[in-house]
């Protein structure tokens, strides 16, 4: 048992930090620091820089752009990116589709797509959820009927994040409605978003943001060459995808950055007689969240260090289930602390439609984002397997209940 970072790991952290400082465009850093999501252009530009450096997809096989690193080293890179803060490589491309294609794709698919996925030449979005298939994903109804060398796809996907930016989509479709179990008869396809018959309709979330979409498929012709893996065995790909990279969901680096920023902000934030940070109650609440975050960081490291064993024995580490549940709770708790710090000026709502609406400013920028972020982050305990679903899984898989 050796619980400290090695000399080499510490040196690597320093190298990453310096490289990010030298390469991250100032406007990207600034936008991220204010608590906003990066624009499409910022995301693409930054990911290309990471790819050029060899850092976009370190967890992939070396032949496809990966690095022969330990899990801890990958963690350090990811944490440094998050805590700068800089955009993280697009999850749909790098953590979801990429590994699925590596594991299930044909040689042609890999050669053609993997470099474009890693370099964000193609922006992928995810077509899994449907209006009637949320937590119960396997009940999905979007149909794909094979006609010659095409599938004809009809149906509707929803909660499709950033579909408005996407060039391509990966999606689950039902290819055999007669299968005995609903998990059977599902296939995993990829499709060009420009294919006729695909329509994207924005969903505006309660905070006013346009982040998710509905995607409609109306007699969409998808070449059979776009099938990933075996027809009717798409559920294998989906399971693989969902179990992959659970450590990413904890987002400890990003939460640390938000905490550090909040401490700075709260030192100035008016609290009547004294700054908010000098209120012992607020300070205790903040410290309490920090402590839990520290524990989550250690849990993340434990899961990472255990990754090879878990993979080889096909026995996931029980601690891995902790990451999504507590990671989510802590991100939400931090958003509540921002609301508290903002006080009455937290009522001011940023107008996402108008770029310079707050000039001259009626409230500080972070104040105008506090409640919106709080509302937006309620989604985190719902998507990617809700907290309830996570606990079902834990009770069954680890406790035998």
């Amino acid at each position, binding site marked *: 048992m050796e619980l400290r970072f090695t000399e080499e790991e510490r040196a690597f952290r320093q190298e990453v930090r310096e490289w990010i400082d030298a390469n991250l465009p100032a406007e990207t850093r600034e936008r991220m620091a204010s608590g906003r999501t990066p624009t499409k252009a910022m995301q693409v530009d930054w990911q290309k820089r990471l790819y050029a450096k060899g850092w976009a997809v370190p967890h992939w096989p070396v032949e496809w752009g990966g690095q022969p690193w330990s899990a801890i080293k990958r963690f350090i890179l990811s944490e440094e990116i998050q805590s700068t803060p800089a955009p993280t490589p697009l999850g749909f491309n790098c953590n979801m589709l990429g590994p699925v294609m590596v594991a299930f794709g044909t040689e042609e698919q890999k050669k053609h797509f993997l470099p474009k996925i890693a370099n964000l030449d193609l922006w992928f979005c995810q077509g899994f959820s449907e209006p009637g298939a949320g937590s119960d994903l396997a009940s999905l109804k979007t149909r794909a009927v094979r006609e010659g060398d095409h599938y004809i796809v009809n149906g509707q996907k929803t909660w499709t994040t950033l579909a408005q930016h996407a060039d391509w989509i990966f999606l689950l479709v039902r290819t055999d409605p007669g299968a005995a179990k609903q998990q059977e008869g599902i296939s995993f396809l990829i499709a060009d978003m420009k294919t006729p018959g695909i329509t994207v309709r924005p969903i505006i979330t309660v905070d*006013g943001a346009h982040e998710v979409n509905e995607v409609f498929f109306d007699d969409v012709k998808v070449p059979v060459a776009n099938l990933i893996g075996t027809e009717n065995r798409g559920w294998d790909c989906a399971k693989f995808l969902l179990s992959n990279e659970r450590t990413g969901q904890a987002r400890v680096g990003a939460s640390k950055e938000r905490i550090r920023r909040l401490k700075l902000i709260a030192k100035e934030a008016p*609290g009547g007689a004294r700054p908010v940070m000098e209120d012992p*109650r607020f300070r205790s609440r903040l410290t309490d969240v920090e402590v839990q975050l520290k524990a989550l960081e250690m849990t993340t490291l434990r899961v990472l260090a255990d990754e090879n064993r878990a993979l080889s024995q096909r026995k996931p580490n029980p601690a891995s289930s902790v990451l999504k549940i507590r990671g989510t709770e802590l991100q939400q708790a931090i958003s509540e602390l921002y609301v508290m710090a903002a006080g009455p000026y937290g*009522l001011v709502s940023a107008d996402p439609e108008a770029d310079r609406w707050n000039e001259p400013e009626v409230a500080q920028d972070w104040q105008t984002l506090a409640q919106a972020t709080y*509302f937006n982050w309620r989604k985190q305990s719902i998507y990617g397997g809700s907290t*309830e679903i996570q606990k079902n899984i834990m009770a069954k898989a680890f406790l035998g209940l």
Partner: protein
Amino acid sequence: MDFDLSEDQRLLQDSLSKLLKDKYGFEQRKGYMKSETGWSRDVWAAYAELGLLGMPFAEEDGGLGYGAVETMIVAEQMGRSLTLEPFMSTVVMGGGFLRHGATAEQRAAMVPEIAAGNLLLAFAHTEPQSRFDLNDVATTAKKDGAGWAIDGRKGVVVHGDTADQLIVTARISGARRDRDGIGVFLVPANAQGVTRRGFGTSDGQRAADITFDNVKVGAEAELKGGLALAERVVDETMAALSAEAIGCMEAAKDLTVDYLKTRKQFGRPIGSFQSLQHRAAEMMVCLEQARSMAMLAAMMASEPDAAERRRQMRAVKIEIGRNARFVGQQTVQMHGGIAMTMEYAGGHYLKRLTVIENMFGDMDHHLAALSEEGGVFLAA
């Protein structure tokens, strides 16, 4: 002790409920929100017709002489429908300032106009440095001949963008956080030197940032009562906001329970899952505890002992805030994605409840103050 509504009160509740059912469906509300004012003049006129806009004023002033229980009834109905109109600003707050601080002449001039729906008020108290402290006032009022000249900046003036008259706290004397030396002034919104910048609030309502640059008003513009007046009105408003929160929570709970019964996953209604059943039961516990406190607030709104009133009202605000947060968050969680969207009412209840939680002091603010004041149950 008796918690039942009188016949008249039930009538008031029914007629408002009918009006809102008619005019305040969730789709209609979206239209009002998109309009220029951000709320409906049409609904406002209907309120006037129903007598709601004059309800807290004495009959001799042209009102209905209703009390805190009637305000509770009305606010609760408005909470259910997530109404956007400036009822709190004009009738509850504006009404409170006029009843307790204005002269008979002022009331004679203004109450009929308010009751008719022609006059809107807004209370400007928050300042960039003040946080929740009503006594933290940097805006100044200087003697100017017989009248006053007002200078300063007020933020987050709810419905301040459409108000005709602003009720403004300003410092006449003393240091920034002194309790003494604060005046409350009636300032026409179109007075020279008043600049307003309107914006949306996080719950989809409207507010304004307002600067006062050597704004001249007459001697009669100062209402009598100073900080004590403002605190009294804020206590009354907290009672009304609590009732509004009950309406929001009850509607959110109903919406959620309905959804649990109809939404199916894994081949069965999700309301058949015990973990969601227990959460829904907990929502109900929260709602009932909050409702009890809204009733306490209605009772304490007219308490003459200001310190006692304040302590109890802090307890109310804390308990409303705690339960509002749980009910709001669980409304979204138990719905799942659908309640994350603008198109569905669920998330809007969370938003309004969050704003109520953060108006006039959040939980920690009142916990700190109440614990310094000796807590709820004083030594016998």
